[in-house]
């Protein structure tokens, strides 16, 4: 008798379970099937709403529905919903995802690659059905197939408006102050210790007749910190060329090497000493972090540079470099935007540019008014940040969350 009931239930189940849901049927254990007839059937979901997922590249659809009336209340025997989709209303639908009970929406995000099995075509009619899964593991196929809906990509991401405004405002401020500076308006900039020290350090190297070591860090030319470091290198190299002090620039990345060669060469030309430029002063070492450090450390102890400058991106090697530099008796000036490494530079170097000061340094060293103009814009940015956060905190504590939401950015 039991066996017959089992077979019967399996037969019913086979009709119930559509293509693509076989893996779920494996989970149905005999006990649950035994009591199949006993458990009442929950109500299906209603009001399936379909829409294209906003602010994306397409290939995605949002499915929303009103949960079954037996979800959490009524019979309370729903464990979740299975979402199925297909290209035609009558054709077979594939299972694409499962969400637990009490949820009423699902983001069906597919691949944009046609050969991928999760590919969803754009600008094509798509149909969806939401099935109910019960406590005993049954899947109840809903009669309602919703559709059609078409997915498509958008040309503007509304979730990123806050960034757009911030970038536009900041660009305006920068251009405005650069123009003001060009027009000859005096801008006050407070002194920064590390930057003032660069000139003295070059002078010291000249007096001692020892070279200057300039380390651009482990960044590639794609890091803005490295780009900022190039401009500082340009100023240092010009000064170095005037004093006729040798400079050594070991690099970690071949592109960084070529750009740095270009920078140093032009600086020598500007200083009127193109013949003194030695291309090998800027050279490639290796692309392995600690092998690079091993080489630079060896160089420090052999050449004994009077001054070491570290500007750019640094990681765990920061302290290895700075301590060896201090063994070699060099004056050391450092600057990085890697927050985790700033403490080590502060501890081991004579002067350290903390974070943003690195980006200010290139403008300082040049003393060109138009470059200083952008520092003023940065200060405005920080001022706005403080003011807006104070307003935001006050509002948030009075229950106004919408102000903070204005600044949130979608991924």
């Amino acid at each position, binding site marked *: 008798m039991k066996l017959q009931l089992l077979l019967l239930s399996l037969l019913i189940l086979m009709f119930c379970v559509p293509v693509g849901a076989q893996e779920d049927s494996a989970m149905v254990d005999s006990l649950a099937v035994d009591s199949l007839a006993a458990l009442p059937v929950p109500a299906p979901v209603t009001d399936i709403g379909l829409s294209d997922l906003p602010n994306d590249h397409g290939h995605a659809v949002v499915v929303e529905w009103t949960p079954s009336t037996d979800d959490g209340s009524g019979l309370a025997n729903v464990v979740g919903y299975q979402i199925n989709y297909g290209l035609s209303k009558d054709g077979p639908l594939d299972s694409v995802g499962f969400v637990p009970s009490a949820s009423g929406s699902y983001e069906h995000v597919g691949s944009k690659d046609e050969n991928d099995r999760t590919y969803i075509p754009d600008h094509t009619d798509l149909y969806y059905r939401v099935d109910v899964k019960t406590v005993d593991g049954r899947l109840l196929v809903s009669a309602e197939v919703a559709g059609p809906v078409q997915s498509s990509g958008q040309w503007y991401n509304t979730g990123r408006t806050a960034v757009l405004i911030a970038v536009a405002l900041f660009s305006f401020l920068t251009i405005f102050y650069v123009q003001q500076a060009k027009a000859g308006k005096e801008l006050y900039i407070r002194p920064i210790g590390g930057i003032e020290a660069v000139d003295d350090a070059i002078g010291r190297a000249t007096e001692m007749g020892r070279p200057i070591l300039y380390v651009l860090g482990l960044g590639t030319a794609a890091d803005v910190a490295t780009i900022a470091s190039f401009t500082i290198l340009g100023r240092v190299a010009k000064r170095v060329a005037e004093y006729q002090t040798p400079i050594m620039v070991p690099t970690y990345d071949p592109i960084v090497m070529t750009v740095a060669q*270009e920078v140093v060469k032009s600086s020598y030309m500007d200083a009127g000493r193109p013949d003194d430029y030695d291309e090998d002063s800027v050279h490639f070492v290796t692309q392995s972090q600690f092998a690079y450090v091993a080489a630079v450390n060896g160089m420090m102890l052999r050449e004994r540079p009077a001054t070491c400058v570290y500007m750019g991106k640094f990681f765990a090697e920061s302290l290895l470099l700075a301590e060896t530099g201090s063994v070699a008796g060099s004056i050391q000036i450092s600057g990085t935007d890697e927050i985790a490494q700033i403490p080590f530079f502060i501890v081991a170097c004579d002067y350290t540019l903390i974070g943003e000061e690195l980006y200010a340094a290139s403008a300082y060293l040049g003393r060109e008014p138009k470059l200083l103009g952008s520092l003023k814009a940065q200060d405005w940015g920080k*001022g706005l*940040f403080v003011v807006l956060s104070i307003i935001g905190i006050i509002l948030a504590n009075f229950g106004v969350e919408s102000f903070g939401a204005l600044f949130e950015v979608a991924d």
Partner: protein
Amino acid sequence: MEFGQYLGLTFAIFVTLAILSFLYKDNPFYRFAEHLVVGVSAGYFVIILWFQGLDDKLFGPLADGDWYFAYLNSSNAEYMIPAILGCLMWTRFSKNYSWVSRWPMAMYIGISAGLAIPLEMSNRVNKQLAAMMVDIKWDQFLGGADMLWLLDINSGLSQVLVLVGTMLAIIYFFFSKAHTGVFGKAATGGIWVLMIGFGASFGFTVMARISLFINRIQDTADWGKTAFDAAETANPNYHSGFQVVFWALVVFVIGYVVWEIMKTLKEPKATAQ
């Protein structure tokens, strides 16, 4: 363990000691290890970039083209553009045409600078701004009962301190205003916050760095144990061989250290660090 593997491990121990000898001073062993690793790692990255970079990004997309059409019949013929730009970098080998290499360099920098502007604005400014606007937990302002009130990182007081600390530290970074008066006091407060933060993160890192050295000690000790414990080895006949290698390395290293110390003692006064 195979004997060849043991020899490899012995070499590994030797270069470990060679690098550690750098702590004393620059010496031939360190120079050997340093120059060796520069070459080997550069070669290693050539291979990695060849197979994982070029193969994936260039040869892969162009695979369905033919070389005698310069791959222009490939379905991804546009990938010839970066290849040509890459070749333009090679004009640096020539003196007269090296200015051409500035073009790919300019594109490279343009792409990265353009990429950074909205991304950094979003991640570092907008998101931090949104994170600042917190609803302070007034109901548990002094923190949970199981901790000293000050030490609860989820208390309202800690939240307030974070907010105030952040603002003070931002004030320190103002460039266009002299650090005098109230503003100067705030900036001093800011640098104090920065210093406490730096001190704490320095202290936390000490444990991680010492762990690295402990790991090296443990590895070296395991190697020594293998030399004296033939049970682990595939062929017990290697036993004496292991020990010969072990003692050879030990004698070699001790010999060098003694020689170096003798030399330093002979020279009257040279090194001052």
